[in-house]
């Protein structure tokens, strides 16, 4: 059982580090982990769940606002949703999503339709990618605990 735990812990450590190195997560995610303890063991997962729900809602708002068939695009409406997504992605450490929001905001400000549509597609892909990766990470945590081990603290630096 110990060999399994060690192996899982190593996988968890490597995977976590790769997520930071590939720019999916930044130090705000680390900050969130600090807020998790035995009293609130699922805090990070709960916040990320809320974040992904936010993504679905906001991206749908953006898509609706960018729909040209209903008339002229209201870029301030798009921008408002992008601003909110930028805020929540920043709060959870979703680094790539946040970076995309920065570009997206610029396209909104310059009323660049193609740019906005491109960003919308990219942000949709990006949050889904992150969601999958974090699911894998949380699954690893579960496996470690089920095997009787402790989830290691991963030092990113």
């Amino acid at each position, binding site marked *: 059982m110990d060999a399994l735990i060690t192996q899982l812990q190593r996988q968890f450590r490597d995977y976590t580090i790769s997520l930071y190195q590939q720019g999916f997560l930044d130090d705000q995610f680390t*900050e969130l982990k600090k*807020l998790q303890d035995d009293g609130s063991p699922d805090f990070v997962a*709960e916040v990320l769940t809320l974040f992904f729900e*936010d993504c679905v809602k906001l991206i749908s708002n953006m898509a609706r606002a960018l729909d040209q068939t209903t008339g002229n695009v209201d870029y301030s409406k798009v921008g408002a949703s992008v601003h909110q997504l930028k805020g929540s992605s920043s709060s959870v450490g979703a680094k790539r999503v946040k970076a995309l929001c920065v570009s997206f905001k610029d396209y909104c400000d310059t009323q660049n339709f193609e740019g906005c549509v491109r960003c919308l597609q990219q942000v949709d892909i990006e949050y889904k990618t992150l969601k999958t990766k974090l699911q894998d990470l949380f699954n690893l945590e579960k496996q470690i605990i089920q095997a009787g081990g402790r989830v290691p603290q991963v030092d990113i630096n």
Partner: protein
Amino acid sequence: MALGGFSSELHVLAVDDSFVDRKVIERLLKISACKVTTVESGARALQYLGLDGPNGSSSALTILDKQDLKVNLIVTDYSMPGLTGYELLKKIKESSAFREIPVVIMSSENIQPRIEQCMIEGAEDFLLKPVKLADVKRLKELIMRVGEAKEGLTKSSSPKRILQNDIDSSPSSSSSSSSSQDVSSLDDDTPSSKRMKLEPKSS
């Protein structure tokens, strides 16, 4: 640390329209041993405080009801639909019942004129989002020091900043001009780029 007139825990009212941010700020405050009430708008905050009466006045009954839920600190996001954090700040400072409560503004945008505007209106501090544990710890210490100062001195109309310099004997606190709101270097974890400073240079 003695808490002077405060009950054993600071009760913080956190105002933010983002569900994610509310959850995070709530946890940040709870882990820093604060009681927390979160609301999603300035209007709801005023309602909670009992300031949403016809003239913006509070009903005495509401205050009495809430004695045990007395708010010691208000932390609010700046950009919110409806009442902005700045407008909420103004309403609180206009109220005789609540103007003594410290108000802290949070924003994801580091806009100097905005910061100054809030400080001039009486905000205690301005936090750049995303808010970290170190920010909350620093804030809590500030609030408790301000509270102790009020307990120890007769209430005067001295501006808070002078009060802080008088009572603050901590060697790590800012010793620059009184316009500085960089309250502490107690926490060195926080990169200086995250700090709200009135002076353009960073320490």
